[in-house]
């Protein structure tokens, strides 16, 4: 079965790869080892990678375009891969210095084009923007957004404001204009200048941090719906990447119920939130929920607003990789085709 993998992580072998895309004064900072991203305090104690994904030369997993093509695309019959960088790329938005962050995000985008897109035409990518200056971020989207292998704009979940806030409008306006969905990817919560990783503060362990990735997704989603982002930008699409899927149906039951009585507070929200989500929002599947009783996954699919919602993702080369040959095996052929290929092809215009 043909597949589009909607969450593939890539990085550099050495930061020297970024040098051609930075001018002074930033190039000197890079060479002096200046801070590249806002760190979160929650590393996986055993490292982030699936241990069999190191290229033969021992470089970091996901740092060699040819090896990734062989180890992921060829092996699992993946026709197209949507590259997301690493959460550290997305965490440019959590650096204190907005100008450095903007320069770095532009360098990343040029690096994607030259290092990855030109290596293999199965690679597609996500424009990295620095949200500290939304106007500059919009300019960056317009600068590279016409490249045929950039198919979305990506934001990290770690932020100082929920993403429905009007502060972010320039980014959505540019994305809509360039016909690019906006993706939110977790694991930058609590990094650098971002807010704490949970509304209640700082958890202690990586297992908590990883599990709670769903909560910032919920915060950004409810914010974008209630602040009217999809009314203001009616062609905008949102992709929630790696933030889980199982929470969505009961979350929408709650929001729909509240909307019935409270919509006077947000009168621009003219449709039931679940209808807005069905039209504008997609979710990637990894890390797929694994209920003990397999039937519960079928029931979950029944509860989703539609069969068009889910996009297959593997998260290669990370430790929580979903093997496409093992997941969704008990779903109907038609639903599998939608999740593995058609939903993404439609969203990204392939």
């Amino acid at each position: 079965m043909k597949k589009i993998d909607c969450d593939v992580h890539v990085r550099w072998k050495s930061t020297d790869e970024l040098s051609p895309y930075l001018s002074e004064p930033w190039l000197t900072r890079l060479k002096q080892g200046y801070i590249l991203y806002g760190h979160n305090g929650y590393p996986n104690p055993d490292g982030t990678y699936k241990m069999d994904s190191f290229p033969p030369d021992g470089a970091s997993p996901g740092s060699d375009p040819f090896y990734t093509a062989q180890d992921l695309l060829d092996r699992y019959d993946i026709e197209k891969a949507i590259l997301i960088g690493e959460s550290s790329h997305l965490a440019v938005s959590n650096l204190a210095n907005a100008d450095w962050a903007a320069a770095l995000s532009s360098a990343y985008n040029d690096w994607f084009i030259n290092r990855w897109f030109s290596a293999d035409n199965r690679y597609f990518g996500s424009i990295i923007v620095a949200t500290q200056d939304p106007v500059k971020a919009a300019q960056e989207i317009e600068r590279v957004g016409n490249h045929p292998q950039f198919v979305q704009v990506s934001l990290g979940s770690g932020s100082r404001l929920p993403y429905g806030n009007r502060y972010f409008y320039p980014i959505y306006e540019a994305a809509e204009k360039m016909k690019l969905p906006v993706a939110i990817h977790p694991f930058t919560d609590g990094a650098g200048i971002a807010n704490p990783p949970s509304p209640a503060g700082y958890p202690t362990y990586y297992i908590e941090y990883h599990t709670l990735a769903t909560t910032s997704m919920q915060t950004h989603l409810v914010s974008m719906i209630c602040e009217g982002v999809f009314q203001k930008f009616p062609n905008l699409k949102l992709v929630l990447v790696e933030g889980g899927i199982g929470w969505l149906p009961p979350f929408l039951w709650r929001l729909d119920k509240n909307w019935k009585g409270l919509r006077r507070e947000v009168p621009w929200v003219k449709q039931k939130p679940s209808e807005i989500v069905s039209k504008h929002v997609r979710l990637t599947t990894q890390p797929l929920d694994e209920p003990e009783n397999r039937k519960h996954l079928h029931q979950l699919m029944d509860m989703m607003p539609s069969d068009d919602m889910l996009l297959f993702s593997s998260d290669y080369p990370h430790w929580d990789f979903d093997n496409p040959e093992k997941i969704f095996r008990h779903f109907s052929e038609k639903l599998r085709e939608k999740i593995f290929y058609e939903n993404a092809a439609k969203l990204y215009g392939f």
Partner: protein
Amino acid sequence: MMPFYPVAKITDINPGERKIVTIKTIEIGLFNVEGKFYAIHNYCPHMGAPICSGFINRTVNSNSPGNYIYGEKLVIRCPWHRWEFDLESGECLIDTYKRIKTFELSIQDEWIYCKL
């Protein structure tokens, strides 16, 4: 009687090292850990990872928060989702229905023989 196959010389696998061999299309990982050789099927029952590239660790347990009991059992931990399997029995520590296949070894004249 299931046959024993010669799979490696003991000098091929130094202490702390591992080697993957194939017998009749079955990939088997041989490990030399703490003075003993182990053999397991290179296939994780969860999502099919090549488990033999995982971590060899001792368990970390506890009897109260903040207390750590290190080292009760030897485990191999999957290179993907890090599930733990008893290296001796192949049993998954959190779900005994899931296990990796282990193979009996015999050592004679510097050679390791594996029973299929």
